[in-house]
């Protein structure tokens, strides 16, 4: 999960806890960290190799922007199989268009309503971690 706002991180993890998925989540706080993690670089050079089964990506990120991360992931042979779900407050058309053009797998607008937010996270979690078959090697 790529998310800079700690409160959103907490809400998301709390929602996923109900399905015991919280432990499986790696949280990075900005675009640069995300790319480092995916490429096993710098602070993540020692991590266990393998791609995440899904990436929840916020768009408004410090340092490297969400769309830029998306672009790099989808243009990298080693990373482009990773399913990316953009999870953002914005439902501005230009963000939708840009994300889909870059090949995003899903675009979810964070609901304002907390209930709906939690439900959305749960449904996302269930779908991507349980129902969906991840790319081999994840």
């Amino acid at each position: 999960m790529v998310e800079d706002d700690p409160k959103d991180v907490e809400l998301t993890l709390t929602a996923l806890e109900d399905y015991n998925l919280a432990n499986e989540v790696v949280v990075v706080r900005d675009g640069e960290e995300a790319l480092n993690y995916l490429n096993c670089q710098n602070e993540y050079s020692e991590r266990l190799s393998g791609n995440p089964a899904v990436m929840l990506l916020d768009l408004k990120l410090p340092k490297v922007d969400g769309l830029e991360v998306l672009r790099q992931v989808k243009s990298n042979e080693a990373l482009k199989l990773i399913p990316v779900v953009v999870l953002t407050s914005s439902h501005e058309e230009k963000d939708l268009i840009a994300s889909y053009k870059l090949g995003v797998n899903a675009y979810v607008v964070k609901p304002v309503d907390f209930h709906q937010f939690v439900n959305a996270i749960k449904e996302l979690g269930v779908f991507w971690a349980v129902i969906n078959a991840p790319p081999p090697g994840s």
Partner: protein
Amino acid sequence: MSNVKRYGFAVVSVFLAVLPGLLLQHYKFHDAELALLLFAVALTAWQAGSGPAVLSIVLAILCFDYFFAPPLYSFDFGPQDVPALVVLISGAVLTTWFASIRRHIEAELLTARDKLQQEVAERTQQAREIRVLNEELEKRSLALEGSNKELEAFAYSVSHDLRAPLRHMAGFAELLQKTAGSKLDDKAQRYLRTILDSAQRMGNLIDDLLAFSRIGRVETQKAAVNLDQLVKEAMGEVQHETHGREIEWRIDKLPVCYGDRSMLRLVLVNLLSNAVKFTRARAKAEIEVGCGNGSADEVVVFVKDNGAGFDMRYVDKLFGVFQRLHHVDAFEGTGIGLATVQRIIHRHGGKVRAEGALDRGATFYFSVPKFKNGIKA
């Protein structure tokens, strides 16, 4: 040419004609003198005008008589000199006549040229003015574009940045409810619920405000719009609000109008939704849609209901942004529906109006341009 020059020209030319004549005479070569004098006279008439021409004629005759007509060197004048005289005079007359024609044409050409020059100067001036105006127009439209972009950025920021804290407020209030709710007394729980409701309401307000601002920013796409069809679509959209209700719909035939389809659809949806909402207290709701007395260019459409109505004293506030004339407990809503209707209709160049009475229903009128075959009204 100045007068001195002109008359001087006459004298000189005659003099210059006489000299070779004398020379020729010396060599016994007659008959050429007249031709030379004629030439001098003609030249004078052509170049110097009629006055000097007369002088040159007189001088030529005198010289001819004196130098070349027998008896030589005398001013005797006999009938044998008349032909010479006639020749000289007619030569001069003819040349003068041609000269005057030429001068006349010349004068006309000059005036024509001056007029053309003046016109050219005027046109250049006009072209310059147009260029200045164009530059100013470009500057203004650039400024407008910039201002529009600023508005877009503002709306984007609102949409993004305001929503996040809202979600956190709602989210953590709920978590509080979940984890500590049982430990709280009724009052505290009510406070918590108030926090949650307010967060929800703020979210609705933000959404509505954004949608409202979008109407002003987006370009309208005008075409012929079948109002009958649009009313049916709008009715379909408010269907989910009418479950279990008894509503009598009276829809008149409406003409085809000219406007932006999606925007006009929103107008109808808002008005019908309002009608459905405010007739909730009625056992049987009556909602009527029809068209009234427009003009040759406009259609006036109305939506009438027998619902809660409103106090006509506050009719001016009705279309304000977030203005509500009813308690939020009685009827939900942010108060943006009518403001949206007004904005859209104004963008179509029309007007909105409302009539109503407390507890006796309300009628909302709006006007749109009629669609005239091929040409917009």
